[in-house]
């Protein structure tokens, strides 16, 4: 009986810790950064919806500008897997399909985290992904990602 109680307690604790994540982190090695999107935190579901072009405007009415890593970027596969549940080629085909149908504006593909951070800095409403190791370079733009 004593052992069961301990397990239940552990589950409760984990559930509490589970709903709280590290700031900007959508996956173990990916961070979400954005510039003036009217909020500093988003749920993972919201991040994916914006990144997939399902929503075109932020709550502050600014237009959503999506920044994605190009195929040569080291986080390309991680972003494709996390957001689009596919590889980088699949991600490109996803956008090809969307643009072909005229349902979204094309995203901006950039080669590395530095370019991504620079683009975010310059474009309000832009959202992008960088590697967790470059967190310190984009502290001002990190978005707190909550689990659902």
């Amino acid at each position: 009986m004593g052992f069961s109680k301990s397990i239940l307690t552990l589950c409760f604790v984990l559930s509490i810790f589970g709903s709280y994540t590290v700031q900007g982190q959508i996956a173990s090695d990916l961070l979400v950064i954005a510039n003036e999107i009217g909020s500093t935190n988003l749920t993972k579901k919201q991040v994916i919806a914006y990144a997939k072009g399902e929503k075109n405007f932020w709550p502050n009415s600014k237009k959503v500008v999506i920044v994605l890593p190009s195929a040569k970027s080291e986080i390309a596969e991680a972003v494709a897997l996390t957001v689009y549940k596919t590889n980088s080629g699949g991600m490109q085909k996803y956008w090809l399909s969307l643009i072909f149908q005229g349902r979204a504006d094309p995203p901006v593909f950039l080669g590395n985290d530095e370019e991504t951070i620079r683009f975010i800095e310059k474009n309000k409403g832009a959202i992008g992904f960088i590697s967790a190791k470059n967190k310190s370079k984009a502290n001002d733009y990190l978005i707190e990602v909550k689990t659902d």
Partner: protein
Amino acid sequence: MKIFGSISFKIWIYFSSILFISSGLVIYYFPHQQEKAILKYRGKELQELCRTISLGVELSLDVNDFQKLKKSLSYYQKKRKDFDFLLLMQTDTLLGKESIFEQITDKSEFDFFKIDTSKYLMKSEPFSTPIMDGRVIIGLSKNRVSKEVHETNLPIYITLLVILLITILLFYFVARTISSPINQAIKNAKLLQDNHFESFNILPKNSGDEIAELHNALISLKDSLLYQKQDNKNLLDNLETKITERTDKLNQTLNRLNEAQEIASLGYYSFYDQKNALFCSENIKSILEIETGNINNLEHFKSLIDPEYIEEFEANFTKQPIVPFSIEIRTNVIDGTLDTKKWIAINGKCFTDKETGKCYLSGTIQEITARKNGEADLRRLSQAVKNSFNSIIITDLNQKITWINDSLLKLTGYSREEIIGNTPKMFQSEETDPETKKTIRENLKTFKSFKTEIQNKGKNGTSYWLELYIQPVLNEKGIAEGFMAIEIDITDRIEKEQLIKQYISEIEEREKEIKDINTNLEIKVAEKTKDLELSIEQIQKSQQELIKKEKLATLGLLVAGIAHEVNTPLGAIKASAENLDYLFSKDFFDVINKVSLTDFRQALEFYVSLKDLNSPDTISQRKYAKTIQEKLNLNYPQIPNAFALSKELAIIGFDDISNEATRLLQQENFNEIIRTVRLLLNIQRSLKTISDGALKSSKIIKALNVYSHSSDQTQQSIFKLKDNVDNIIALLWNKIKNNSAVKNNIPENIEISGFEDDLSQVWTNIINNALQASNNKCNIVFDYLEESTHHLITIKNDGPQIPEEVIGRVFDEFFTTKKRGEGTGLGLNIVKNIIEKHQGKINCTSSEKETLFLIRLNKLN
């Protein structure tokens, strides 16, 4: 019609037609060419757009530049209504299959793979990237292009139609303007032709073209004609006066000439050979009875001549004779123009025309039909008299011969010179009857016609007989100027009459001789007839013997079977008798000694109620005994020796423990009673077996007796047909019983009159034949049908079919299909003879299914 033939109409229709054809060609070809051009242009446009989008796709997937793709697509989106679909096709590089990656179309149920590509203008451009290969396809419906062309062209057509109508109207006015002066010129020319100079219409001055020149020429012609007209009029006046005078004189002369010719049935003619021109006077037409028209050429005249005379006519008429000729020819009857053929005499000679110097034939034609007919009559009469087979003599009043025909010369043998000038008495002789001579003399004196027969003599002294007709020859005033005698040679007839008399006497003698021969012949015929009757009687006897032998032969074949049939019931009788002997010698005394009177009475009661039970066979007995024993063990365990008791009950006939059996078992001394009952039943059953066996044997013996009865019977009897057939079935039963069956459906009450034994032979032979043919394996059925005058008996069997080539001969004497020694070939022949003896008929038909004998016996037999 005048309008359609006018110059203005022709000009107008000519130009209008050209205009119509040109417009039609333009309307027909212009839209096609336009559509082709548009399609070409749109094709290029589509191709360019495809290339742009394809490039956009490549940039998007290669370098992640989706902006170019978006721009190229924005162009498509702007002009989207001009296209039907845009497809982004993805190619599976491994399988080589193509699938739709994305498509843009306004059609809700669009399926690219099901559309008819011939109805679409489609262009495609491939793209190739590391991520995906494929192509971009853009298409638009050709119908859309056609519709566009049509919509664009409609106002053009309307405008063209209006222009066409206005042009046609303009052409009409132009044509009228051109034709008006020409029509006036034509009108003036017609006026000149008809000499209406006063109505000549002068046209107003014009520009001096060809039409004006034509008009001026007409005016000059008019003036010239007016001058000539006046000059001609003066000349004509003088000429008419002179001609009138001369014509009057000529007419007078001509009238007189015609009158003379009419009286003489004469006409004149002139023929100009070079022109083939023939002139005939009215009299000639009258002679040839031509009512209308003229005979104006030689062919026409020749058609009026009898073909027989054409050659003669041509020989004289067409050779331009300088010396006058004269021919007599007959005319023809053509199409009823002439009622009868006529004779005409044509005279003529060639003359020379003073003006032309050419020769022409001129002469007369005269009808000579009456003269020619008279000549023909005379000729025919003369020939008839000359060539007559009879002799003809013409004398003068003094009886001197003046004319004879050739037949007289042949008859008498005299020459013409010897006879002419003599009298007919030169032919008479001493044999000539004086009375006949006297009759001739007297009749000649009175000039009467008379007939007689006379015997004369020829030059060589041969006598001949004549039938003589004498009559006076009269001149045109009816006065006798001589005599004519017609002599018919009747010598043959007289001789034949004498011969006939001789023949008649000979025939009478012959008739007498034939009568004598006939008497002898009748006696001989009677003798031969008697011999024949004896032969027939012998044949009938032989036939009867043959039937008897056949019957005996059949009987011989049947004897073994019959013996067996009789032996079986006799065996049963013997066994039953032995059984009875045994019962009475042992069992009966045992029962009498052991059973009380009361029990015996009880047993008798049970016997009476159980005597109708059939005795089961041995196998059934065992089966019943087993069943009863089980029931006894179950229901009557107190009964000792149930096995023996159940056996007794089974022999009695019980198959189970019935009510009666229960009642028996409830009796106090049931063992004794059952034994007694069984004994009584044994006795009763043995007696029944003896009775049945005796009856069966008796039946067979009776049938044998009937069959073997002598067939020499001469008197017919009345007997039952069914019994007659049944007897034979009984005799043949040994053959039938194993694998065959014979069913006799003849009603009981049918009685027939006939020879019973003979008919038995019929049934025997037919049944025997069927059994032999089928190896004793067939079903035979006898049926009967009563007709008003006949008994109809059918015998059918399902044995083998009689072959078609054989069936026609089955009733023939000595015909058999059996092996040598097995059959005589007399069986069915005897059947047929017997049926015919009963004034009946028999037919046989055979099919795969059955063979049928149809017998008709006369009721009045």
